[in-house]
């Protein structure tokens, strides 16, 4: 998001993202530097998750190019953490919370490397941040949805990654956990880490340095304060809303755009 000369965390050039050769969003260009947080905002199906997966290396680009730390995505797994939106984890998988969070460290050690005291420290710290340290010995399949989400977020943070990709991480969280998570994003940015987060939450996006509005195309991309202004939001959602607990309160609709449905609901 700047013309700085240093190494970019992520650099996309005319990037097209999609599934099986079908482009969902074309011509995405941006640069994310260390310490920057980018919010991807758009309604369901607008291409947020697809872009995140492409940066993570889970999907190949349909066009153009994306570089992570100057190389192809997936080149340095230990430096990138990814938290997807859906967790198809088998409900019968016998795993304790501690084991789930520890898995974050496998990327650093490959098949055989032993986990070190530093790994344990990172695991404990991430669990403390997401307030799941008390659940360390609890089996994953005994947790509530919100607790599981906090465990998965602790796993993402325990990676101690330079680039963190989060797909609607706060969707399932209560207010306290959401505040904790936002605080964590600020701490990470201050420490020079970069974050890309997909969200429906305009308030959350406004706290990020940059926002990219997506609606099957890049509607706007730049500093959040500018991008989250009315005209761009209207083009993305067909309305402008204010985020409040429990959802978006619509304060203005695009002229002539009649809504029988909710753009923001999941």
């Amino acid at each position, binding site marked *: 998001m700047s013309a700085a000369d240093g190494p970019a965390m992520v650099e996309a050039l005319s990037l097209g993202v999609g599934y099986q050769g079908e482009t969902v969003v074309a011509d995405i260009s941006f640069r994310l530097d260390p310490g920057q947080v980018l919010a991807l905002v758009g309604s369901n199906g607008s291409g947020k998750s697809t872009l995140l997966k492409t940066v993570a*290396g889970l999907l190949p680009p349909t066009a153009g190019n994306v570089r992570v730390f100057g190389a192809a995505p997936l080149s340095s797994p230990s430096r990138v953490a990814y938290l997807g939106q859906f967790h198809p984890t088998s409900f019968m998988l016998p795993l304790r919370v501690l084991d*789930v969070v520890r898995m974050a460290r496998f990327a650093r050690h490959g098949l055989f490397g032993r986990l070190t005291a530093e790994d344990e420290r990172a695991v404990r710290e991430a669990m403390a941040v997401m307030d799941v340290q008390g659940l360390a010995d609890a089996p994953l399949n005994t947790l509530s949805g919100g607790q599981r989400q906090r465990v998965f977020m602790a796993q993402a943070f325990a990676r101690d990654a330079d680039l963190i990709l989060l797909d609607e991480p706060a969707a399932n969280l209560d207010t306290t956990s959401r505040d904790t998570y936002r605080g964590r994003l600020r701490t990470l940015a201050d420490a020079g880490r970069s974050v890309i987060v997909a969200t429906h939450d305009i308030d959350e996006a406004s706290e990020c340095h940059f926002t990219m509005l997506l609606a099957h195309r890049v509607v706007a991309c730049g500093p959040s304060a500018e991008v989250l202004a009315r005209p761009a939001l209207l083009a993305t959602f067909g309305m402008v809303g204010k985020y409040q607990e429990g959802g978006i309160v619509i304060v203005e609709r695009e002229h002539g755009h009649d809504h029988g449905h909710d753009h923001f609901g999941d």
Partner: protein
Amino acid sequence: MADWFVTPFAANAFMLDALLAGILVSIACGIVGTYVVLRGLAFIGDALAHGVLPGVAVAMLLGLPGMVGAAAGAAGMIFGIGWITRRSNLSSDTAIGLLFVAMLALGVAIVSRSHSFSGDLVRILFGEILGIRASELAIQLAATLVIAALAWICHRPFLLLCFSPEQARVSGFAPRRYHSIMLGMIALTIVVSFRTVGTLLVFGMLLAPAAAAALFSRKVATMILSASALGIGSVYAGLLASYHFDLAAGAAITLAASGLFFVLLAARQLLPRADRRQEGRP
């Protein structure tokens, strides 16, 4: 009393060999079965167990070792499932189902050309654990060691694969590679075990002990160890029942294994759970 439990094995070399073979099969099935249960690969395991049938049948007609035929059958099955899934939009379930019946029918068709049709078929499906040769025991030992070594080497990618293939991939472990290794381990288990418990019953040994272990295990390693131990217990109980009550050994072993699963399931329903949902937290 001890006579009843020990003498059958102490006094009969074939019973001791059967027990040894059964222990090795149980360890291999405990390891592989755990991943079959956790990753929901039961159907592909079942298909492989039946897919080896035509291979074994052809090998028998040609006078080749059955294991060679079984390996060819399993390889054909894995290749076929991959090919159908890639070339059509059918789900792998459908591909597996299609190949499964085709291979089973092919096997029966081939065996029906032989003079001792039903005898051969029964031997392939249910094994001959009471007629194990030393060479077969050695092969079973080698296969079990290979499976244990692979499980140890791949324990991190396997765990990640069970947790989420996406997480495996972003952690630097290619899901497709480790999925293939897992399929190879299932195939190896089935191929070497068909002489002992048979292709039909090896599937029971893959599923029942691992499913029973899943009922109470809190860690994957515990599940593997418990599944192996439950398998060994079933082999011992099955062989004993077979000896004293003149039952088919392979069937008695598999019955014991499935019986254990139902007993543990019932026990879990009756006993209070210590690890119910964590209360008091959002």
